[in-house]
């Protein structure tokens, strides 16, 4: 295992544009050292989620120290949960965060960039519920 490896992040959204944009924003805020991989839309490019896209994204995000998945809404959560019931095909550990989408990925990516482990990265994402903007 590379001691400098960072936790990877996967963004699962119904919209490819939303996942791509949130990934770009989080990468820029955190300085680019973390793999933030979007998995948005269905396999044919429509609105929805795709287990195949999520699985591929988790493999691309993996650096050997875990991957945190952040879903947007509803069936994104169900798609990830179904995938995690049979994690044999995934690199481990892979965890699902209960977090607001934009704030969660920004907080998680910054924490991952500092070298935190997957539990701390998940904690940062989930604490984002409490961050006030004003």
């Amino acid at each position, binding site marked *: 295992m590379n001691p400098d490896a960072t936790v990877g992040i996967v963004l699962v959204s119904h919209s490819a544009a939303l996942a791509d944009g949130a990934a770009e924003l989080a990468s*820029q805020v955190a*300085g680019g050292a973390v793999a933030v991989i979007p998995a948005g839309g269905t396999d044919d490019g429509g609105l929805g989620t795709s287990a195949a896209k999520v699985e591929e994204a988790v493999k691309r995000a993996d650096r050997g120290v875990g991957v945190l998945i952040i879903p947007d809404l509803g069936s994104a959560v169900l798609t990830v949960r179904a995938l995690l019931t049979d994690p044999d095909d995934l690199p481990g550990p892979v965890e699902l965060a209960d977090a607001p989408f934009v*704030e969660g990925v*920004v*907080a998680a990516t*910054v*924490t991952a960039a*500092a*070298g935190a482990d997957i539990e701390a990265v998940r904690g940062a994402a989930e604490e984002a519920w409490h961050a*006030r903007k004003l």
Partner: protein
Amino acid sequence: MPESCEQVITLGGDLHARPAGALAVAAAKFAADVSLTVGDKTVNAKSVLAVMGLGATSGQHVTAAATGPDAEQAVAAVVAALSDATKVGG
């Protein structure tokens, strides 16, 4: 080695998203608790969302403070990140 340390700096630019990210990444690498204070608001410097929530702007005074075994290095790193990151805005 001091267990607590603080330093005040004047922002050269606004503390937008990218500077806040650079600062939080720098702070989170230390064991010490690190805080930032602007006016009457104090936040955890390791939380990028909290740092953004300060809404700190160019010319404001920011106090970086740390408590813990590596407090001195943490404050130095945070001050360096603040000076670098706010040079060009965010």
